[in-house]
């Protein structure tokens, strides 16, 4: 993986990648040592809507008061981050880097440290050790990150006595959105989550799904550069979950999205890259392709009909073939020898199958994310 790619390492299991040449020291996230750390890295930025061509600067507008911001290459950076709660280590030496503009997943079973990691990124929790940076700043540098970061916390209830509209307006005001744009911004994000009718409804009267969408709306106010979403579709019915996924997809390319979820299918569909955590430690990370296709195997789903397995086994590059008769799924393992890659194996296997009247239903390279996670976590 190149240094430009999404990278993440766990200090205990693997050394961190050689750091790309970067400007000076990162801003420490620890509250006792805050320091601004702008990262002036020239690159085109997808959310630099108002930036004059070639200036290398972006302007945060669309709600938040127009301010010059230096563009950054890395949206989120965790360096050897550890979080302990008394004797319990929830996150253990995690190093992680997310490039600006990506959709990045945090994956892991319950208790893996996803929400703790997420909460440190959002500044809710302070790391016991290590450094967390968001857009080059410590998460508790609120003024520097105002309107640049939006967060959907997993289990933070909305204030029940507030009406949805007044809650969103209050949030928008605190984000320094100009007074004449406050209500429009609030209404726009509410419309974006399909909740324009809830303006005068009290937050305490909302159903779980409606509340989740209002929470999502507050995370999107002001068009932030980084959006952290903790379990964005948890507890939602399939239709609403689908709509939320579509909404997240629509934000792709406009901002950096960090999504923590148990729903691996959802993450596989949404994310460009992911980090897999288990018991507080990082066990794997990389782009989604790297995570799912790193193994030398292909999977072919066959429709009812002939299944010429022995002929596939006879192919020279094939090492082993497993066939699940019930699922009618063929798994072909091969040697990653020189000149042999997954695409070639797919071509050869499909040719044999089609020559023998097998009916192909689906083909995939590598393992699914779910299988990969199952392998890596206990």
């Amino acid at each position: 993986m190149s240094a430009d790619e999404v990278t993440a390492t766990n200090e205990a299991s693997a050394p961190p990648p050689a750091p790309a040449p970067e400007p000076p020291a990162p801003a420490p996230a620890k509250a006792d040592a805050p320091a601004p750390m702008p990262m002036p890295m020239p690159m085109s930025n997808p959310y630099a809507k108002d930036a004059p061509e070639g200036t290398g600067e972006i302007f945060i507008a669309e709600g938040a008061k127009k301010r010059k911001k230096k563009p950054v290459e890395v949206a989120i950076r965790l360096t050897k981050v550890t979080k302990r709660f008394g004797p319990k280590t929830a996150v253990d030496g995690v190093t992680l880097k997310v490039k600006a503009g990506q959709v990045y997943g945090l994956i892991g079973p319950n208790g893996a440290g996803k929400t703790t990691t997420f909460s440190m990124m959002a500044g809710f929790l302070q790391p016991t050790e290590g450094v967390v940076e968001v857009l080059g700043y410590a998460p508790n540098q609120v003024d520097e990150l105002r309107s640049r970061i939006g967060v959907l916390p997993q289990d933070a209830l909305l204030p029940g006595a507030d009406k949805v509209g007044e809650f969103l307006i209050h949030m928008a005001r605190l984000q320094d959105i100009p007074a004449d744009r406050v209500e429009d911004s609030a209404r726009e994000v509410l419309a974006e989550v399909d909740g324009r009718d809830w303006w005068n409804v009290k937050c305490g009267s909302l159903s779980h799904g409606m509340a989740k969408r209002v929470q999502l709306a507050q995370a999107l106010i002001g068009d932030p550069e980084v959006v952290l979403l903790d379990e964005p579709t948890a507890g939602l019915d399939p239709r609403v979950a689908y709509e939320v996924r579509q909404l997240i997809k629509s934000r792709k390319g406009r901002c950096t999205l960090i999504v923590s979820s148990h729903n691996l299918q959802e993450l596989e569909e949404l994310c460009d890259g992911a980090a897999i955590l288990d018991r507080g430690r990082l066990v794997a990370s990389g782009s989604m392709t790297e995570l799912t296709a790193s193994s030398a195997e292909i999977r072919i789903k066959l429709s009812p009909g002939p299944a010429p397995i022995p002929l596939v086994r006879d192919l020279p590059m094939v090492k082993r073939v497993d066939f699940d008769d019930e699922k009618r799924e063929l798994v072909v393992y091969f040697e990653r020898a020189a000149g042999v890659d997954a695409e070639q194996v797919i071509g050869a296997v499909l040719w044999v199958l089609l020559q023998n009247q097998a009916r192909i239903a689906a083909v995939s390279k590598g393992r699914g994310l779910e299988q990969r996670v199952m392998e890596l976590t206990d």
Partner: protein
Amino acid sequence: MSPLSEIRFVAQRELGKSFRSAKGIVLLVLSLLGGTAASLLLVKVQQLKREKMPNIDPESLRSIREDAATQIFGDPATGKSLADAPEVLIAVFLLTIWITPLVISLLSFDSVAGDLQHKAVRYWTLRTRRASYFIGKWAGVFATISTMTFAVHALIWVVCIARGEAPAATALGWGIRFWLLTLPMSAAWCGIATLVSSLFKSPIIALLVTFATFFVLFMFWLIGGVTHANALMYVYPNFYEDMLVNPRLDRLMTGLACCLGMAALYIAGGSYLFTKKDV
């Protein structure tokens, strides 16, 4: 955005929330009922005064007031200065500073703890400095209690003027002064209550600890008074009432500085702890 703007937004919301919530409305109604009861009591006392002392001259009455005020505040100069104040307003002042801690504890126990309990505080910590959030909460509670005490005092002023107990200028002059003098002590009580509220994620625990803290401070004052250990009494905000009503400017300023200093200390301490806190 400046910290002051953050504080303003948080405080405005807190103020609005207080007067819209069932708890805030009930407390306001109870306070107004208390004010009404005090007004009725005033009517009764004045009736008795006229019946029992029909021929008392104003100078003797003034002398009685002066003696009483000297006894209450322990200072002849203060007694002399308060001799011209309508007695009902002195009574309401004393009642206010004794009742206010109770109202503050009921009003503010969940101001921060309520947000911590269900993690709603996370919506704010993303957008405001932690210290601004804390100070905004304190300011919201302080503004609420100030408004409530003003409403009660204003009711008494109206009754006082309407019944001819004092000319309007005298009633308003003394009334506003007494109300203003309750504020520094309220500020300190609000500081303590907000600090306690920010330490707990359970509002009910915060309420109990607030009561306990106020009671301990009261005991310090009581024990300090009995044993003449003044240092113990200094921690009790109401200890400074004598200084605040004193006609000497230096005493007034000392009382003011002590109350506001105490409020500042609790606010600064609370802000610091809240800044370090995992939410």
